[in-house]
C-alpha cells in the first residue's frame, strides 16, 4: 500500500465518518422510535466496550467487575431523582462521579492482586456492591424500585425536543437519552484516541509491553493504571445511570448483572479487536447485525456470538479489526509516533550527559 492511496483511504474514511455521525445525530428527526431505542442499546454497549477495551486491552487490567460501576451509576441516579428530587440529567452526572469515587477504594484493594486474582477480586467487589444495594431499603431493597411517573416528562430538555420533533413525550425522552448516549460515545472515542497518543498513553503502551522495563525508564505503572481505572469508573457510571434512566426501573440483580454489563462486553471487544481503538465499534456492529439477522430465532444469536468469539480467540487473536490491520497494513487510526525525517547532521548540541567507559 503506497502513501498516497493510504492518504486518500484515510480522507475518504474521514468523510464517511463525518457523514455517519451527522446522520446519527439527525436520526430522531425521521427514524421510527424503535430504531432510536435499538441504537440507544448499541451506543451504550459501545460505551461499555470502549471502557473495557481501555482497561483490558491497553492497561492490561482484565476486570470482570465493571458491572459494579453500572450498578452504582444506576442507583446513584435513582437516589438523586427519588430521594433528593434532582433533575435526572444532574442524576446522570452524579452517577458518573459516585462510580469514579467508588473506583478509588476498589483500585486500592484489587491492585494488590495480579492476573486471574485481579479478575476474581474485581468480581467479588462488584458482588459486594450488589448485595449492599439490596440492603438499601429507601430504594426498594432486594426487589428494587421504579422512577416515579412523570420523572422523564419533567426532565430538562424533553419539552423542547417534543416541540422540535413534534412527537409524544415518551418519544422525546427516547430521543434525548439517545443523543446523550451518542455524545457520550463520541466524546469517549475521541478522548481515548487523544489519551493514547499523549505522553501518558505512550507510557501505558510501554507498561503493556514490559512493566519492569517501563519502571526503569521512569514510567509509574500503578499511577497510570489507577488513573485509567478511575476514569473508566466515571465513563461506565455515566453510562449505567443513563441506561437505567431509560429503563426507569432498577433492581440489584439487573443493575449489577455480570452477564449483561461485563460478559457481553468482553465478547464484543474480543470479536472486534482487543487493544485496538476501532475494535469495540466493529464488535458492537457485528453484535447488532447478528441480533437483527437472527431476531426470529430467539437467542440463537448468542450461541453464534459465543462460537464466533471462541473462533476468534483461537485463530485471530487480535480480533476482526486487528486482523484486518495486520492483513492490509491499513491502519486508519494509527497510534504510532513516527520518527521525524531529518536531513544532514543534527544542529543539536551533544547529549546533556557525559559518560566514560572502562
Amino acid at each position, binding site marked *: 500500500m503506497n502513501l498516497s492511496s493510504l492518504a486518500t483511504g484515510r480522507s475518504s474514511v474521514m468523510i464517511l465518518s463525518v457523514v455517519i455521525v451527522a446522520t446519527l445525530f439527525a436520526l430522531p428527526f425521521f427514524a421510527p422510535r424503535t430504531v432510536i431505542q435499538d441504537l440507544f442499546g448499541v451506543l451504550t454497549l459501545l460505551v461499555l466496550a470502549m471502557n473495557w477495551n481501555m482497561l483490558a486491552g491497553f492497561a492490561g487490567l482484565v476486570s470482570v467487575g465493571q458491572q459494579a460501576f453500572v450498578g452504582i451509576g444506576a442507583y446513584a441516579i435513582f437516589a438523586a431523582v427519588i430521594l433528593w428530587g434532582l433533575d435526572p440529567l444532574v442524576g446522570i452526572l452524579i452517577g458518573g462521579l459516585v462510580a469514579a469515587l467508588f473506583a478509588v477504594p476498589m483500585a486500592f484493594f484489587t491492585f494488590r492482586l495480579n492476573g486471574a486474582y485481579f479478575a476474581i477480586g474485581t468480581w467479588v467487589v462488584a458482588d459486594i456492591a450488589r448485595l449492599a444495594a439490596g440492603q438499601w431499603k429507601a430504594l426498594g431493597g432486594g426487589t428494587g424500585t421504579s422512577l416515579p411517573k412523570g420523572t422523564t416528562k419533567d426532565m430538562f430538555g424533553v419539552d423542547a425536543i417534543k416541540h422540535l420533533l413534534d412527537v409524544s413525550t415518551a418519544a422525546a425522552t427516547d430521543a434525548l437519552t439517545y443523543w446523550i448516549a451518542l455524545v457520550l460515545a463520541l466524546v469517549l472515542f475521541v478522548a481515548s484516541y487523544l489519551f493514547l497518543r499523549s505522553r501518558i498513553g505512550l507510557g501505558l503502551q510501554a507498561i503493556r509491553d514490559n512493566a519492569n522495563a517501563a519502571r526503569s525508564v521512569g514510567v509509574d505503572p500503578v499511577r497510570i493504571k489507577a488513573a485509567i481505572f478511575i476514569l473508566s469508573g466515571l465513563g461506565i457510571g455515566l453510562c449505567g445511570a443513563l441506561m437505567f434512566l431509560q429503563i426507569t426501573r432498577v433492581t440489584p440483580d439487573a443493575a449489577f448483572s455480570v452477564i449483561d454489563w461485563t460478559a457481553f462486553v468482553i465478547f464484543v471487544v474480543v470479536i472486534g479487536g482487543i487493544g485496538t481503538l476501532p475494535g469495540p465499534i466493529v464488535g458492537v456492529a457485528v453484535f447488532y447485525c447478528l441480533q437483527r439477522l437472527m431476531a426470529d430465532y430467539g437467542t440463537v444469536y448468542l450461541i453464534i456470538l459465543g462460537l464466533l468469539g471462541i473462533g476468534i480467540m483461537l485463530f485471530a487473536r487480535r480480533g476482526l479489526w486487528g486482523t484486518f490491520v495486520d492483513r492490509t497494513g491499513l491502519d486508519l487510526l494509527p497510534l504510532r509516533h513516527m*520518527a521525524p525525517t531529518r536531513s544532514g547532521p543534527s544542529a543539536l548540541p551533544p547529549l546533556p550527559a*557525559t559518560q*566514560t567507559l572502562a
Partner: protein
Amino acid sequence: MPILTLKAVSKSFGALKVTDDVSFDLSDGEALGIIGPNGAGKSTLFNLITGNFAADSGQIFLDGRDVTRDSAMKRCESGVGRSFQIPQPFGRLSVYENLLVAARFGGTVSAADAPDFCMDILERTCLAPQADREAVGLPLLQRKRLELARAMATRPRIILLDEIAGGLTEPECRELVATIGKFTLPARRSSGSSTYCMPSTASSSA
C-alpha cells in the same frame, strides 16, 4: 563527593545470600567494571542500584542523598539509567517510540525537543534506519543497541550496562564498543555533568 555510594548493601533470595555486605564509592567521571562468574550476583547488584530489587539491609546514596527506599521510577528520574542483560524492549512500540517513552518520562524531555533528542541518539547508536520498525523483530545486536539507546534517552548521570556485549560475536562486540565510545568522546569535552558506565562482564563474554 562521590556520585554513587553503597554502604553494606545485602540481598538474599531465600537462603541464598547473593549480595553480601557490598560497599563502594563511585566518583564523577569514573568507570567501574563488575566482574564475576555466572550467578555471582552482578545483575542482582545492578537491580539493587536501579531499585528493581529492594535491598534487605544497607544504604544506597546518590549525590549524598539516601535513595535506598526510592522506587525504580524515582531513581531513573534522579539519573540512574540501565540496560538489561536480556534485552527488554517494548515489543509492540517502534524503536523510535522506545526512546520516546524513556525521554518523555525518565529524561523529562519536553514534547517539542523529544523528536530531535531521540533521533540524535538513534543516529549515534546506528538505529536510525530502523526507527519506525517494531522493536519485537530486531536481531540481537540491534536489541542490545536499543537497550543502550533507551538508557541514554533517560538522560542518565550514571549508566549501568549489564553485559551489554553478552551473546554477541567478536566483530559485533567490537562494533558495539565503538558505539558506546561515540557517546563518550564528544560528550566528555562538552559539559560538567557526567555519566559513568559500568559494563558487567561474565566469564562468557570477552
